[in-house]
Each structure stands twice: as C-alpha cells, then as structure tokens.
C-alpha cells in the first residue's frame, strides 16, 4: 500500500513527460535586503536599495502533442477541439464531409473546421523545430478520384491577439478503391513566435479541390499535431511593491545571475512592508515580504 502511494506521483509525472506536457515549476522569490526588522535611516539613506533571490524553471526543449477530438455528431455543440489526451470520440466518423463535385474542377467550399485547444496551455513555441502531424481522412467513398488539398493554419493567442504560428498545404491524390488517407505534414513555425508564450492555439483545417463523394477527418487518436515547445517560459521578471500587497503599481526589478535588485525612494518615517514576487510566463510565485522600520 505504501509502495503504491509513493509510485503514483512518479507515474503521473512520467505520463506527463511522455505526453510532452510542460511540467510547470512555480517560480519563487526572497527578499534579502532590507531584512525583516531592519532599521533604515531616512537621513543617511534617501534611496533604499533592495535585493533578493529568485528561482525560475529552466526551459527545456520538449513537444506538446495534441489530438483532434470531436464530442458529437450533428449536436448543438459537436465541439471539435485539440486535447493533449486521447480517447474514443463520440463524434468520430462525422465532421467535415466532402461535397460531391466534378472531377477536374476546383471548388471552393468555404468550409473549414477550427480545432481550438481545450487544454495543454499555455505554450512556449520553439520555432527552430518543425510542427508535425497527421490528418487522417477516412471513409472516403471508393469511387473518389482526384487531387485533394489540405490547408492547415495554426494560430496562437498572444497577449490577447491572434498571431499566425504557421501554415502548410498538403496535396493528396485520391484513387478509386482507397478509402483511407492519412495525410502527414511537417512545417516550421514562424520565427516571430519563437519563445513566445501562447495562451491559446487553434488549428484550422480547410479541405478543397476536385474530388468526388464524401469522407471525414478521423478522431479517436487517428489525427494529431505535435508542437515543438519549451517546458517553461523565457519571460522572467521580479516585481516589487512598497506597502501594497496587491501590486497595483509594481516596480520592475533588475535580474542578474545572483538574484535581483531594485531601488525605491526611502519612505516616510515609520514601519513599512516591502513585497516581492517573481513571474515566469503566466506563473506567479508566492509573495515574499519584509517589514522594516524607517527612522530619522
């Protein structure tokens, strides 16, 4: 029994690592100066130097694998989405259905499907490596014939705005008698999003071209996309606040290899509290505080 208790967290950690999820390590911070209870002379120290230590998770190259999932077929909320977990999808076998069109013509159906991520966020993109994956087109009627184009657009949500992470276009020739077409793709993310923190990810799939009869994008683990990511954010900072634990007007500290430093005008005579917190991406540390006294 005891052995099981010890092993369970390790198993969870191992599964998370296998799935390519970022194992977030909460940043931390301390205040080393002024020390708790320290007296500071206002006359001798008009500007108060403050310092401390901060620890951040080291970003390591990893991957985040998303599966294309669909909760229903023809319901009011079929909810096509990306998830870092796979399973049997109730909407598998449904979804994008190709219209019947004539061979040899290019028809723009204007039909695309968005798969926004429902978990595995936020992400820090590594644009030095390729995005890879498979869009599995299944249930293609055996009489189908023609060139099909699968357009992929990956968009991210950065600071509340949409940014294009990357695009790709893959062609597949459908031949009579074949009903299954796993379409592989590989493309490099835009350099503009390298090491940026994304709060959302959406994969838009648009299938078009001259083909006949119908098919769908398979779910239940058959279609997926792997993003090259970092395990932690490169955006690291320390904020300081004097007598205000809400950090309404934070002061940015300067980071250096040994910790952080900042300077504030020494406050009025009396007892004051200095607050500090470290931030890595969207993760915020516990707040450290140090109460000190200002004397004449």
């Amino acid at each position, binding site marked *: 029994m005891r052995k099981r208790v010890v092993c369970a967290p390790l198993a969870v950690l191992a599964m998370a690592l296998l799935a390519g999820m970022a194992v977030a390590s909460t940043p931390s911070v301390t205040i080393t100066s002024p020390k708790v209870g320290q007296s500071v002379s206002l006359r001798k120290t008009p500007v108060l130097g403050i310092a401390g230590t901060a620890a951040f998770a080291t970003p390591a190259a990893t991957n985040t694998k998303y599966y294309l999932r669909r909760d229903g077929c023809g319901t009011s909320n079929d909810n096509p989405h990306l998830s870092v977990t796979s399973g049997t999808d109730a909407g598998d076998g449904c979804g994008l259905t190709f219209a019947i069109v004539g061979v040899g013509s290019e028809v723009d159906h204007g039909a695309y499907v968005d798969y*926004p991520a429902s978990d595995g966020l936020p992400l820090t993109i590594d644009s030095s490596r390729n995005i890879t994956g498979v869009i599995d087109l299944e249930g293609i009627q055996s009489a189908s014939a023609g060139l099909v184009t699968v357009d992929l657009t990956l968009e*991210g949500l950065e600071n509340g705005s949409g940014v294009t992470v990357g695009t790709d276009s893959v062609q597949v020739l459908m031949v009579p008698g074949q009903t299954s077409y796993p379409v592989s793709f590989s493309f490099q993310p835009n350099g503009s999003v390298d090491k940026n923190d994304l709060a*959302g990810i959406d994969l838009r799939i648009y299938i078009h071209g001259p083909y006949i009869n119908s098919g769908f994008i398979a779910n239940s683990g058959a279609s997926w996309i792997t993003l090259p990511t970092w395990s932690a954010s490169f955006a690291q900072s320390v904020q300081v606040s004097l007598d205000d634990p809400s950090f309404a007007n934070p002061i940015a500290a300067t980071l250096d290899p040994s910790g952080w430093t900042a300077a504030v005008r020494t406050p009025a005579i009396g007892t004051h509290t200095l607050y500090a917190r470290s931030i890595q991406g*969207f993760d915020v540390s516990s707040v450290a505080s140090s109460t000190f006294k200002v004397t004449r």
Partner: protein
Amino acid sequence: MTKRMRITTAVTTLALLLVAGAGSASGSATVHHPLYMPDVQHVGSPALQPPPICCIPNPGVATGLPAPGNMAYFGGHVQVAPKIYLVFWGWGEPGAFDHSTPGMPSYDPDGAAARMTAFVRALGGTTWAGVQTQYYMTNANGTNTYIGNPPNQLGGVWYDNTTPIHDNLSGLELAQEADRARAHFGVTDLANSQFIIAQPQKYNEAGFNSGAGYCAWHDYTLPSTYPGVTPGISFTNMPYVLNMGSSCGQNSVNSGYYTGRLDGFTIVLGHEIEETVTDPGAEDVVNGTYYGGWYDLQGWENGDKCAWVGYTGGATSPSSVPGGLGTMTGNDGKSYPVQSLWSNNSAAGTGYCAGAGTNLPVTG
C-alpha cells in the same frame, strides 16, 4: 442651392410633413420599442423592424445590401458632443464566465471588455465617426447645431460588481443599471451621454438569450416605458455577442480564429453607439412629441441601413463590397472591425454607406 442641398431639404420637408401627420394621427398614443440590431440571419425579420413612421409599409431589406433612401431629421436632439460610458455589469461576479484564459483577467477571459474599451477610447476624431458630423439638430431659434467628432469620447468605465446580476435580464433592469451608472459617474448632461450596459458571457438579456434574432439594441428612458428610471437616459443593451458566434459578427472581418473572434464586439457596439449619437431619443413618440433624431422614412437609423453589408458568410470578403464591413483606424493607430454608417452626403447626395474604408468611389 446645390443638388445635394435640394435633395436634403426635400427629404426633410417630407419627413416633417409625415411627422405632423403622424402626430395628429397618433394622438396621445405612445409608439415604442427598443431599436434592434438584427443578427445576420434576421436582417429582414418583421418582428425586428423599427416602429412605423406613418403610413409607408416597411419593405424590409435583404441581407448584405444597404437600405436605400436618405435619412431625415425628425426634430429630436442629437449628441453634438458625445460621451460614451461603458458599464461592465457583473463581469467580476461569480459565474459570469465558464472559462479562463492564461494571462487574461478572470473577469475578461476573452479580452472582450478590453477590446470594447480600447475601441471607444480610439473612435474619437476618426473618419468613421466623422460620418456623423453632417447631421445636426435644430434649435428653438431655428439654428442648427452639428454633431462634433471630438478626440476623446470615452466618458468612463465602470465594472459594477456590486449590483447582483442574473441571466435573462429585462429591459427595465438594464435601464435601471444605466440609471445607476448615471449616478456613479455623476452625469448631468444626459443629452450628450450614452450608457453601454455590457453583459458577461453567462448573464445576458432575455431576448438575446431566447434567439429573438438580434445582437443588441438601444433605447431611451421615458416614464411611460421605463417607470421609476430617470427620464432622458440613452442606453444600449450590449449582450456578450460572442455567444451568438458568426450571427453577431464573429470572424466577419478578420478570418483567423483568434484574430476575428472579437470582431462582433466592435461591429455591434459601433452600430449602437453611432445610432445613439444621431438618434438618442430612439424614435420615441409620446403624445405627439417626437424624441427621435435622424432616420429614414422606414424607421431605419444610420447603423441599420448599413448593417452586415457585404456579408456572405465568409465566402467572400465583405470589404470588397462598397459600404461593406471594414475597419476603422482608431486614433491610437490600431484597426477595429466596424460596419459602415449611412451618409446622406455620399454618392453626390443620394446617400450610401460610408466610413469603414469601403466607401463608394464618389463620396460627399
């Protein structure tokens, strides 16, 4: 007298004749309902048509096309120095949203409040808002005062998390919230002020929730319609339009999932704001008194006449159609999706939709 002036004068004269006729015909009757902005699927819905002006049947209008015919002045006031007050009612209250977004505040996980605030802050002095400056109100001494386009039209922002909110709000409750906002901001110049009652994802106005087919509406408080509420308040019912997806503008200008996700907020909000500027009295008629400002003989205001022009469900870009949905370059240099506004001066005085960067080649 130019051709344009002759046309404007003729239309105005006709309107005044109709007003006089309607006034005597209606006697003491009160003509009122909020002025809806139909969603994309309900542009021609009879239930969402403006109240009749007099005796001309409303022919409706097809989706994607402007409603032809110039607007006329009906005698009420206009907002010559607009001040727009944003009220985010209940956005920070429990249950207001069913999701969170990393890096975004819990009271605004989609960034809708931030987008609307930035939009209102940026619209002053723009070409888009400048369409309004051709319209005026006639004073008691017979002179006209034209609508201005000052650079700062944002009166204030209030996150009201004190007054409990709930789902399926009534129009009266929205008017009462507008009245609380009036008190909160200490507004005394009601004639130039308008209050946007913006609702969070999970708590919206009943008609919007029911699928009545509109994205928003604006109205004017009178004792006969909003009893107990301070009279003379112009306010907008601004639901969380993202709940209606593309029906209320999502991705109607920008195609990206995230890039176009909030398109509807500025399109719909801009529609209501500028209708309120030119028609703050919301076409109300009480005891023969016309509170309405500018609208056409079908009751269409400057936003209605250009709503969803060019929209084809994503098949083609609405910006490729004259008067179609487009963007406003704000005074902050950023682009905001908007619909165009009816301009009597466009097309050499014939009138057309303008201001969204999709003008006809001939503009007034």
